[in-house]
């Protein structure tokens, strides 16, 4: 199992979040709807191993983010809800920055990012750059915090066959990032 949340709760600062239960295998997709933006954001951050659950367990590729956070972060790519502030830097600088953080070859990362940006044609730069930046490390799992439903098709095309977990605050948005069971990937019709 690539991502497993079992009775995961976040209890610090503000209203408690959870319990969250989820199991996601390689190549599967899951989209969850939450009542509040804060809740959706915290669940996405827990699934990415950035925020640690105060109770219950979170396992990312069988690693516990409380014990092996670096291993978890090599497996997951996290894309925040907020758009990238475009005054931060140009696309090339941004990709160079992300490549340095993940210890990836700069030339390879740039070529990969250009390819991803082509797949994300039509997506506003402020949303396309963070997604391309997240995918250059070739993660097994992509975690999206309240992604823009209008770009669902493009985002999922860029994500390819990897597992995707997204959190939302509207049912319609979640449906656009809808579930894809592993059986569908293998060409087996689920019964």
């Amino acid at each position, binding site marked *: 199992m690539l991502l497993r949340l079992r009775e995961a709760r976040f209890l610090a600062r503000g209203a408690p979040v959870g319990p969250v239960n989820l199991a996601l295998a390689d190549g599967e997709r899951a989209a969850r709807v939450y009542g509040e933006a804060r809740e959706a954001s915290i669940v996405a951050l827990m699934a990415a191993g950035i925020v640690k659950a105060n109770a219950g367990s979170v396992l990312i590729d069988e690693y516990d983010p409380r014990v092996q956070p670096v291993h978890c972060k090599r497996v997951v790519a996290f894309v925040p809800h907020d758009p990238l502030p475009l005054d931060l830097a140009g696309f090339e600088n941004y990709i160079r920055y992300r490549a340095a953080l993940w*210890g990836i070859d700069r030339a390879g990362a740039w070529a990969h990012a250009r390819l991803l940006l082509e797949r994300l044609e039509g997506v506003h730069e402020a949303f396309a750059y963070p997604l391309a930046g997240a995918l250059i490390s070739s993660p097994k799992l992509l975690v999206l915090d309240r992604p823009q439903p209008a770009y669902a098709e493009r985002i999922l095309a860029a994500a390819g066959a990897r597992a995707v977990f997204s959190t939302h605050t509207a049912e319609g948005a979640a449906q656009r990032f809808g579930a894809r069971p592993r059986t569908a990937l293998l060409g087996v019709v689920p019964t």
Partner: protein
Amino acid sequence: MTFGALLAIAATRLHAERRTIAYAVVAAIVVAFVQPSGLAAPLFFCGLLGVAVAMTQGPGRHRHLDLCEESAPLFGRELARAKALAPCAVAALVCLAYWGAQSLAGFPASPLAFALALAAVVACTLVALSATIRSGPARLLYLALACATSAIAFALAFYLHSPIAEVLFCCVVSLVALRQYGEALARYDPV
């Protein structure tokens, strides 16, 4: 952590805070022309600027950078070193600007005075960094400790006439503060 990641984080943080850095350097130059002699003014004023720059590294100001760094496969202590490099570089720049302005004003300070001020300002800045990820009384305590660091460093250099003791004190405080910041970052939840 690669040297490239360290530089990328520091350079991106410096770029994001370029206006603050410009204001800090201008402020140091102006104050140096007003009070060009003595050790107290550069040590305390540059220390204050160091605290201000350290506080700009706090969460929320550059949320996208914070999330990129926290989702990168880096340990807390590695991230702490990289995040501390930017305010320390600014602290050094501010001290250098003050020192240069002193010379232009006709009161050139010795290289020893510059070194003493720099050591105290860097130590003060590193202590203040721990305040950025705390709130309430804990934040006030760290800010008070940063001010106390400047005061003790000045007392050692000016009243006890012991520059070696001042530099040693500042080195020890800097190392402990950096380690403390790393430990706190490793446990920090960006919610």
